[in-house]
């Protein structure tokens, strides 16, 4: 009888391990469709769904908060990818929520050892320049956003809205920290709305 009890225990443990294995592989199969790059399907260094990441500065003040539906680090190049991203950014030394910048995008990629996030799909950056009385919004299909310098760059068509003014064109370089547009490559035009 004692021998049978041992065999039963081993069988139960084996079933649990097998169950856990199959559950894990099927979960990976379900998330495969949301992976940003098919070449990276082998594995992620890490991945997570419905994530909130908070980055604090040296003084313990919130520097940025990042929310994403899915986030993963790719093993080949260490790049971090995110989908359905929302990022709240506090200007350095300033923790006024009314001046907090918010960036949203369908997807984002941050290469390892880089400060530039490549944002793609319905990208919107909205916030208030430090001395401006009005909120401004930049939108485009893609933006490269430098986390350190706060520079937004796109080669696509863009639109910017500020204080009843609408600006559009193709190819933009803007600094959201300074609240400036440094360059528009072509077709710069605008409208002062009644």
């Amino acid at each position, binding site marked *: 009888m004692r021998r049978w009890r041992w065999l039963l225990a081993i069988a139960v443990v084996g079933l649990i391990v097998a169950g856990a294995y199959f559950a894990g592989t099927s979960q990976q199969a379900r998330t495969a469709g949301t992976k940003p790059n098919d070449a990276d399907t082998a594995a992620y260094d890490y991945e997570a769904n419905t994530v909130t990441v908070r980055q604090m500065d040296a003084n313990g003040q919130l520097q940025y908060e990042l929310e994403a539906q899915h986030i993963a680090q790719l093993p080949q190049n260490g790049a971090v990818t995110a989908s359905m991203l929302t990022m709240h950014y506090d200007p350095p030394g300033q923790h006024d929520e009314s001046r907090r910048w918010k960036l949203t995008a369908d997807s984002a990629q941050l290469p390892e050892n880089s400060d530039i996030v490549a944002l793609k799909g319905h990208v919107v950056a909205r916030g208030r320049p430090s001395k401006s009385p009005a909120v401004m919004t930049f939108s485009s299909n893609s933006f490269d956003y430098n986390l350190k310098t706060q520079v937004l760059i796109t080669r696509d068509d863009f639109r910017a809205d500020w204080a009843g003014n609408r*600006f559009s064109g193709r190819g933009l370089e803007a600094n959201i920290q300074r609240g400036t547009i440094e360059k528009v490559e072509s077709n710069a035009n605008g409208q*002062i709305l009644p």
Partner: protein
Amino acid sequence: MARFFPDRGVVAVVLLFAGALTSALAASPTLDKKTPIDWKEGERHCFKADFNAGTITLCDVTLTQGASTRITADNASAKGLSDNNNGEWLLTGKVHIEFDNVILDADSATVTFAQDRLQKVHVKGAPSRFSQQLKDPSRRNQGRAATIDYDSQKDVLNLMGDTWYTDGRNVVETAAFTYNLNDGSIFSSERVKGTIQPEKRVPAPRTPDRATSQ
């Protein structure tokens, strides 16, 4: 026959040319508060904006508001852009301004939009010029001066510095005068030198008498 008035010592002269009083001559100005003010750059690109300072800089710019207002210049910078204040635009290089059948050409200009319409214009040039197309397409009043100011409240142009004016027939030269955009009249409180050409009278048609009417 032309009459010439060399340096008339007139302190205040109201010059109301024949026909100028018919206000129907001058196309009535339009108030446009519903149409957005559009701008675009041409072939040269230098667009910059500072949203903290509320300024933008443009090259090869065209500003329009509806069909009646159109402004072009080589360079433009605007300040004071915010809600309900459409900014003061400093324009330089081949400045051309059209509004309400008035045309201004100058080397530089300051144009103020407020409450969503053109409020003030100050142009400078060597010289700066204006012209106004009257309802009668064959008539155009025009003048030139060192500076011309448009005041939308009074609907007048103030011309200063070596001014010259003609309504196509009469000519006036003086240091400064005011041109009324509504009725095409001019007013000057300076010494005036002018040539006034009397309107040619067309003889009334003869009424045929009974003897010759058959």
